[in-house]
């Protein structure tokens, strides 16, 4: 009896490893294919390659900022905050009105740059405040409710914010003059856009700062403890409500900053901008491993770059297929590594 089970177990192990080996082989083949495609494009159209890459990096930084909001909130209360993309959209609208209407920024001069910076701070405050309010009004009461209740509330909140955006911004896209000038620094045929420089120079330090806060500070320790076990965190003396609110504030500030940066890069916004970008940023968070900060950043840049290359390269599928490519990659990653690239399987969760 015991020997039979042992043999069976051994057979199962072999079967498992064979299945794994096939999966790994497929993954390697796919990666090699992608690499070959990249080299082909690089050799035949080098300047187009680098332009697309840089464009993708700029977009990726934005995706990363928004993805952080999803991943922070998911990490701490395991809620997919569907309203997050729409919070980003509201921040674009707020930034436009604040900078151009209320502060009167015009053209690229020192005064306008100061107004841009002020708007950045205000937009971050705006995003943080709205996100904290949403948590306080809608999600806090549902913390012990079935997860579906909170999820559907998040969807409802998304619609509410979208309608606020519709009333505020109007149904048509609204164009805003930007402070960051068009164009960029060119070396040969390769151009590094000013907006890309701005987005990346903002995003990288913010990411480092955020990692520092979460990993090294007392507040960050409270966040991680709350994420793992709320009651145990309370027993340590951690104010769980305040810690969760702080997390929403952080995520909201990221969305607020992304709102202004997006507006500066694109120059226009619409009430449904958050749906589209939110979905992509959410995909980035899942791709990197939801709940993992570095994963959200990695996923954001990856999707930005993949999109950039696909849309801009001569042998790419082109812009029409942009979304298809992004989500196909998501599905493939989920098949081969369901926890995302940097995600850990949460075995200790019951």
């Amino acid at each position, binding site marked *: 009896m015991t020997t039979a089970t042992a043999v069976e177990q051994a057979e199962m192990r072999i079967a498992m490893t064979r299945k794994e080996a096939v999966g790994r082989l497929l993954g390697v083949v796919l990666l090699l294919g992608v690499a070959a495609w990249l080299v082909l494009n690089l050799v035949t159209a080098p300047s187009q390659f680098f332009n697309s890459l840089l464009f993708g990096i700029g977009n990726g930084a934005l995706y990363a900022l928004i993805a952080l909001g999803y991943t922070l909130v998911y990490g701490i209360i395991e809620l997919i905050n569907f309203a997050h993309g729409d919070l980003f959209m509201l921040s674009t609208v707020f930034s436009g009105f604040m900078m151009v209407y209320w502060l009167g920024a015009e053209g690229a001069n020192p005064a306008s740059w100061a107004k841009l910076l002020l708007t950045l701070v205000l937009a971050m405050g705006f995003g943080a405040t709205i996100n904290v309010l949403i948590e306080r009004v809608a999600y806090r009461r549902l913390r012990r409710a079935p997860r579906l209740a909170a999820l559907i509330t998040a969807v409802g909140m998304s619609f509410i914010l979208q309608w606020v955006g519709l009333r505020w911004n109007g149904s048509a896209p609204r164009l805003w003059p930007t402070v960051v000038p068009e164009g960029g620094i060119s070396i040969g045929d390769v151009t590094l856009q000013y907006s890309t420089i701005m987005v990346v120079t903002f995003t990288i330090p913010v990411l480092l700062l955020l990692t520092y806060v979460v990993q090294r500070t007392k507040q960050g320790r409270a966040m991680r403890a709350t994420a793992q076990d709320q009651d145990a965190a*309370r027993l340590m003396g*951690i104010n769980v409500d305040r810690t969760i609110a702080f997390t929403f504030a952080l995520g909201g500030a990221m969305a607020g900053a992304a709102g202004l940066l997006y507006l500066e890069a694109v120059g226009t916004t619409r009430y449904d901008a958050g749906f589209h970008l939110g979905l992509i940023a959410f995909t980035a968070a899942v791709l990197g491993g939801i709940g993992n900060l570095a994963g959200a950043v990695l996923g954001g840049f990856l999707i930005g770059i993949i999109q950039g290359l696909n849309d801009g390269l001569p042998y790419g599928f082109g812009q029409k297929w942009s979304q298809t490519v992004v989500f196909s990659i998501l599905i493939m990653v989920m098949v081969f590594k369901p926890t995302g690239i940097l995600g850990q399987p949460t*075995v*200790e969760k019951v």
Partner: protein
Amino acid sequence: MSQGAVGEPLLQVDDISVYYGNIAAVKGLSMSVPQGAIVTLIGSNGAGKSTTLRTISGLLHPKSGRITFEGKEISRSPGHEVVGMGIAHSPEGRRIFPRMTVDENLELGAFTRDDKEGIAADRDHVLELFPRLAERINQKAGTMSGGEQQMLAVARAMMAKPRLLLLDEPSMGLAPVLVDLIFDTIEKIRESGVTILLVEQNALAALRVADYAYVMESGFLKLQGPARELAEDDEVVRAYLGG
């Protein structure tokens, strides 16, 4: 050390009732824990022991009755404030933070404290009590054995420098050798001046270390008395302690 008036118990529970929704888990419980004692609360599964501890530490609030600690009412204080008042709780099922290291877990135990030197001294003290934890100091807590996790749960509670330590089933699921070790440590902790309220299903082991015992059954207090007397009363042992 701040204490209540002379003769006043450190912790006084007066006629509390605790509900989960409409279901009463604790019905009219009164008990007191004198300064420097080990008091045990025993009874079968579902008797309301853990609920009582969770109510004392502020995770739950009584529907009626009051709890006073060092003469101050704490029945309405939120959980995150109670630990700062001097009550630490090592919960049922250990509830350590699995994805953090042993050291980070200990740091969190001292979350409400600011005295760096005191924290460092207490860290040394608990690592002396549980040398095994010192060996595992940088290991992720979730990867340790059940016994080691239990040690960590007790050590983490000690890091709050409590005057009252609530221990919920510290022997649950442990090998007999480890059970002995945990109970020895409980006595050592008491000798260092910490009062202990111990919830146990392993009633006989609990009665051996405790000074005074309360026996609960389906939410009610059934019996109380000096631990030694209860342990020697054959009828009590047969009826309540599974002897």
